[in-house]
């Protein structure tokens, strides 16, 4: 039993590191080129351009902050909630792009491959990230917080 719990914690730690690294990297790449990211968001034709521009300026920093937040126990729960939420938003946008047959690039990691096959690959990747973030979130929500009663 104890061995199982240790293994689970190791896997969770690895998953947190990978998730954090991915979102911090994605955030940094997009923070370096917010203009291009704004155009990538605009290509989905879901938002007015000024809002796309505002998101292009803000989202990369939220990804960086949340990615780093996953690594610190005091902010982990909130960070995982945000990453799961962000992942769901990206997933919805990608699904919408695929469903409408848009020939665009994901915009997930700054400059990337454009076109439908690349978009579908990004969709699958986003779904996996949401899955991992949600699983970690569920696990973290069951960790006893200091000063709060242990929930069985």
């Amino acid at each position: 039993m104890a061995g199982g719990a240790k293994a689970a914690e190791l896997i969770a730690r690895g998953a947190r590191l990978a998730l954090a690294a991915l979102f911090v990297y994605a955030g940094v790449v997009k923070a370096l080129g917010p203009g291009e990211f704004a155009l990538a968001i605009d290509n989905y034709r879901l938002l007015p351009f000024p809002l796309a521009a505002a998101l292009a300026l803000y989202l990369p920093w939220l990804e960086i902050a949340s990615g780093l937040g996953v690594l610190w126990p005091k902010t982990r729960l909130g960070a995982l909630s945000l990453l799961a939420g962000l992942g769901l938003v990206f997933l919805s946008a990608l699904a919408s792009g695929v469903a409408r047959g848009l020939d665009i690039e994901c915009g997930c990691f700054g400059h990337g491959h454009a076109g439908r096959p690349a978009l579908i690959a990004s969709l699958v990747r986003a779904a996996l990230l949401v899955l991992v973030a949600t699983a970690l979130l569920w696990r973290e929500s069951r960790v006893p917080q200091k000063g709060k009663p242990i929930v069985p």
Partner: protein
Amino acid sequence: MKQAGALLLIALLPALVAAALHPRRPAWSRELMSMPEVTLEQTRHWEGRVLWVDARREADYQQRHIPNAVWLAEEQWERQLPEVLQVWQPGVSVVVYCNDEGCALSQSVARRLRRDTGIDGIWVLKGGWNAWLGAQKRRS
């Protein structure tokens, strides 16, 4: 909730700084950021001094393309760009196209082309490949 709120706020400060100072910050209007568009009709006045660049998938390009168009895709950029530059001459306008109005590939390729080559006269074909096809059908 508090943790998420704190992270949302922490991200806001660098975002505001970027909005004010980032050299590659977005304009607040799409038109200011888009590559200029040109219609097929307008290109006819350029007396053939046009280099067509096809930004669609390679399979689509191989199947059919605007006569003398070169293929340039982002995933083959390092390999294809020198070949495109070999064909281009000063004074020739570059017109990039992809499938249609809903396709953003041509804008993306045109922007990257301008950034990487410094060529001034780079345009995006309004209506893309579909516009050219439509024009061919109207002629026949």
